[in-house]
């Protein structure tokens, strides 16, 4: 079960798109998983033959749990223990059997495996020797999770009671960070509650209500099904609530706003769209996103993550775009490398992602890895949106509606289409001056749409 977001603890396998015996290639979509937020298509990271499916549709399993076995041609036995799980960002380390590295079939050496700067930084901080880490990413690349898994007690599963595990999942406490007071350091229910209280700061009552103890004669909740039994909408509400609470609690936000004259951008769009069939026309949103992506390259400090007490710049600009779903709730599909896409390509990506987000057909890799998020509520007619940052990102850009407003320019008043651009930024990572430069860059870029 891949992690499809920093806040994801478990997912429900909705549907298998492959059957035992099928040949699969890395990147194939093999299953649909429902998270608290949406249905997501899961990609396979290894090529081979589908062996056994380990999880039945409708089953909710924690992140990191194996979903199926992929058997590589000619080395079934070596691959038997290898679970198919997409690894762009698996949050939980998969225990690796010693035999796996010692597979008799020669494999490309992993010691020189590629690791990005973010991963190197993380390894530095955690004191992890990268040459000793097995890369589980595409082409043996070492991912964050690999490093974290190695740092975390050598990848050992935290010792915890079943009740503690259940509570940790309910209260969204990372068991690996809890000090156990049970025998041999086992984490017990009280330890998890304590950790949840500490995290919740001055509002411990919230954590308590999240896990009410059953009354004496109440029917016992079916173990492990508590989450699944919850209506999807309520689960999503709770997931959003938890993440946004964390963001508001942990991130010292500062907010900036500026009003941008959109007449040049809209005129350029109108002229361009006039020549094109409807399917190729572009919306202002594409220009706004492109301007944000370009500004994020020009003004560093807002594109990336706050991790372990420091800012880690993103590799490339991967723009999350908040999509409200019709039955309530949100999805934030990611346009990868938005800074290098022409606006027309960006528009195509945007249409595709939004449409599939609404149908619950996003892939796991399409909702993770965002480095900066854009929220646009302009279609609702509001002027400005002051958003909450999506952790561990450090900024969120908001756009309101493009509206006609009186506009003074060179001593003259005229009516212009304008949009209010806002920035919510993490004051730990940047200061207001950086944010101001960023919004000014967005403004400037939108005045020359032809250069975007």
């Amino acid at each position, binding site marked *: 079960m891949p992690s499809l977001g920093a806040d994801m603890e478990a997912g429900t396998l909705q549907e298998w798109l492959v059957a035992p015996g099928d040949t699969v290639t890395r990147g194939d979509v093999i299953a649909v998983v429902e998270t608290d937020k949406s249905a997501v298509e899961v990609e396979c990271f290894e090529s081979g033959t589908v062996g056994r499916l380990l999880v039945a549709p409708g089953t909710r399993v924690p992140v990191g749990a194996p979903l199926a076995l992929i058997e590589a041609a000619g080395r079934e036995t070596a691959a038997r223990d290898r679970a198919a799980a997409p690894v762009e960002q698996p949050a939980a380390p998969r225990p690796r059997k010693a035999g796996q590295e010692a597979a008799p079939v020669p494999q490309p050496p992993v010691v020189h495996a590629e690791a990005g700067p973010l991963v190197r930084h993380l390894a530095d901080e955690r004191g992890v020797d990268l040459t000793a880490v097995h890369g589980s990413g595409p082409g043996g690349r070492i991912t964050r999770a690999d490093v974290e898994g190695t740092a975390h007690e050598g990848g050992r599963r935290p010792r915890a*009671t*079943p*009740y*503690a*595990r*259940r509570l940790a999942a309910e209260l969204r406490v990372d068991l690996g960070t809890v000090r156990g*007071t*049970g*025998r041999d350091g086992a984490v*017990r*229910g*009280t*330890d998890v509650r*304590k950790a949840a209280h500490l995290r919740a700061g001055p509002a411990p009552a919230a954590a308590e209500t999240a896990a009410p*103890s*059953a*009354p*004496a*004669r*109440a*029917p*016992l*909740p079916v*173990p*492990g099904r508590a989450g699944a039994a919850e209506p999807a909408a309520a689960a999503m509400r709770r997931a959003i609530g938890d993440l946004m609470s964390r963001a508001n609690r942990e991130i010292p936000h500062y907010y900036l706003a500026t009003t941008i004259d959109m007449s040049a951008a809209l005129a350029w769009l109108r002229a361009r769209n006039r020549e094109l069939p409807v399917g190729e026309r572009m919306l202002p949103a594409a220009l706004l996103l492109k301007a944000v992506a370009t500004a994020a390259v020009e003004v560093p400090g807002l594109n990336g993550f706050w991790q372990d007490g420091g800012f880690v710049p993103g590799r490339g600009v991967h723009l999350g775009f908040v999509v409200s779903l019709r039955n309530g709730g949100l999805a934030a599909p990611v346009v990868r490398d938005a800074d290098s896409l022409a606006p027309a390509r960006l528009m195509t990506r945007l249409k595709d992602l939004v449409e599939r987000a609404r149908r619950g057909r996003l892939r796991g890799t399409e909702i993770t890895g965002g480095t900066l998020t854009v929220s646009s509520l302009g279609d609702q007619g509001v002027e400005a949106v002051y958003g909450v940052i999506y952790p561990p990102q450090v900024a969120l850009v908001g756009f309101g509606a493009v509206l006609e407003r009186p506009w003074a320019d060179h001593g003259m008043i005229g009516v212009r289409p304008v949009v209010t651009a806002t920035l919510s930024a993490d004051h730990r990572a940047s200061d207001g001056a950086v944010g101001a430069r960023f919004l000014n860059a967005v403004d400037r870029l939108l005045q020359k749409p032809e250069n975007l």
Partner: protein
Amino acid sequence: MATATTTYREALREALREALSADDRVFLMGEDVGKYGGSFGVSLGLVEEFGPERVRDTPLSESAFVGTGIGAAIAGMRPVVEVMTVNFSLLALDQILNNAATLRHMSGGQLSVPVVIRMTTGAGRQLAAQHSHSLEGWYAHIPGIRVLAPATLEDARGMLAPALADPDPVVIFEHGSLYNVSGELAPVEGPLDVASAAVRRSGDDVTLLTYGGSLPKVLSAADLLAGEGISAEVVDLRSLRPLDDATIMASVARTHRAVVVDEGWRTGSLAAEVSARITEQAFYELDAPVGRVCSAEVPIPYARHLEEAALPQAEGVAAAAREAVGHRG
């Protein structure tokens, strides 16, 4: 109505008296139940009251008189058969397991065996290894019979009537250490529910599950624990077959810890069954391994100090509860 002071033995006798009075088909038989008044004095005076036809002394042949009881039950009577101790009941195990428990099934439902078999169980009275064992778990293993373990005056008084009303065989275990227990007993009001376990003491930190003769020890253990700030819930299983899973799991779901106290030997015990069910049904509620306090795996010794050492005691139960609750963090 006012309560009356009585003993466990008198409560059993009152239940027999009531059954003999209420239904002509009911009769009592067993070794020394008539003139001697029962090996443990339960039926004292009943032969004088109801006559030797209905309170019948039998030869020392468990297989014969238990088999007779089964036959009488099939023929329409409502026999209550007393077996002196569970150790001796092994001589009748063939009748109980191969006949009483199976005939309804093997006759395609044509035969009912409404027999009630009472027997003494348990140690603690220096009766040594051939009179002291607790084999309730063996009987609770058998499909086709109901197994009851009255641990209180109320259950001693009230379990016989529903047992007689059951169209299938019922085995009732009377723990030898309980006969002299005395206390206040409220008059019977309506038929007693014999299908469910009972919470004898409420608590939040650990569930102590037990039955029969161990109940008083477990209640003492709960007192000890209360003095240390550990709030123990005590569940009396009452029905050993079928087990009342709902009550057990509801309690464990609240306390997240369980200790099963069983005078039987640990290996393959009723305690093992209860523990397994808890892990099957309430695994995700458990905050500590399920604990067990059972008898030492030796034939029950004669010497008092050795016998006491071999049996579950309040201090041992409290220790297991402390272990489950762990360090109070």
